[in-house]
């Protein structure tokens, strides 16, 4: 095998690898365009030192609330070493907007069995929209090491059937203990 043949073999392999990469990119581009998929991109700042005294992340405003248009907004505070509230109830089949922030260090939040996965940084509001097609409990661990208690930092999203979604007069519903 002379050098020219070696070069030809390498070029053939380059074409195969380019084809493989092309297939993956094409699948991503076509499915993203067809299904309107894109990563969450919300840049919104907030004063992390005043979360508990003013604004949408005061304790009484945390958890899930039904909006006038029927969608749900769930506000969650990620703090060392717990999510507040510890359990959030949302109805299945409706668009849910999670708004999360942190008063202390960087945390992470992912919802088991879904593509919801975001970092939570002090000073910023992370926002993720999704829909839960099926009822059930979803485990929500912190996935960004945040200190010695990181391993015990988790919460739960309780997805209830539409007929069990019974919010109070303020449009809120909380998990029944124990959860």
């Amino acid at each position, binding site marked *: 095998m002379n050098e020219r043949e070696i070069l030809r*073999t390498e070029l053939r392999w380059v074409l195969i690898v380019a084809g493989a990469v092309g297939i993956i990119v094409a699948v991503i581009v076509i499915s993203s365009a067809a299904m309107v998929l894109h*990563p969450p991109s919300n840049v919104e700042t907030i004063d992390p030192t005043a979360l508990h005294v003013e604004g949408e992340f005061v304790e009484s405003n945390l958890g899930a609330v039904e909006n006038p248009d029927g969608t749900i907004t769930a506000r969650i505070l990620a703090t060392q070493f717990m999510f507040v509230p510890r359990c959030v109830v949302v109805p299945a089949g409706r668009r849910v907007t999670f708004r999360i922030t942190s008063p202390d260090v960087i945390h992470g939040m992912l919802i088991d069995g879904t*593509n919801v996965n975001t970092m939570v940084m002090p000073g910023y509001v992370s926002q993720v929209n999704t829909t839960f097609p099926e009822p059930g409990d979803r485990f929500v661990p912190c996935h960004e090491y945040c200190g010695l208690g990181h391993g015990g930092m988790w919460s739960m999203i309780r997805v209830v059937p539409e007929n069990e979604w019974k919010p109070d007069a303020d449009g809120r519903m909380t998990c029944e203990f124990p959860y």
Partner: protein
Amino acid sequence: MTIEFGHERDSENGMETYPEPSAAARPQDVADDVREEDLLRVLQDVPRGAFALCAIAVALLIILWLAIYFGVFLPRGPVS
């Protein structure tokens, strides 16, 4: 330590060796005393096997990627 060069010997791969003096001071610096024709004969079939191995590996990679994308990622629902 005395290093001797130029001894005719049979190498491990059975190829003929040729006594050639070398300027290298250590045995590991001495160039392989293999004839070009022998080298080409041995290398002739190598790329075909390597090509097949690489092709199988890449094919598996693509298949698994597609399986995870369509079997796990998309069914989990879109986020935005």
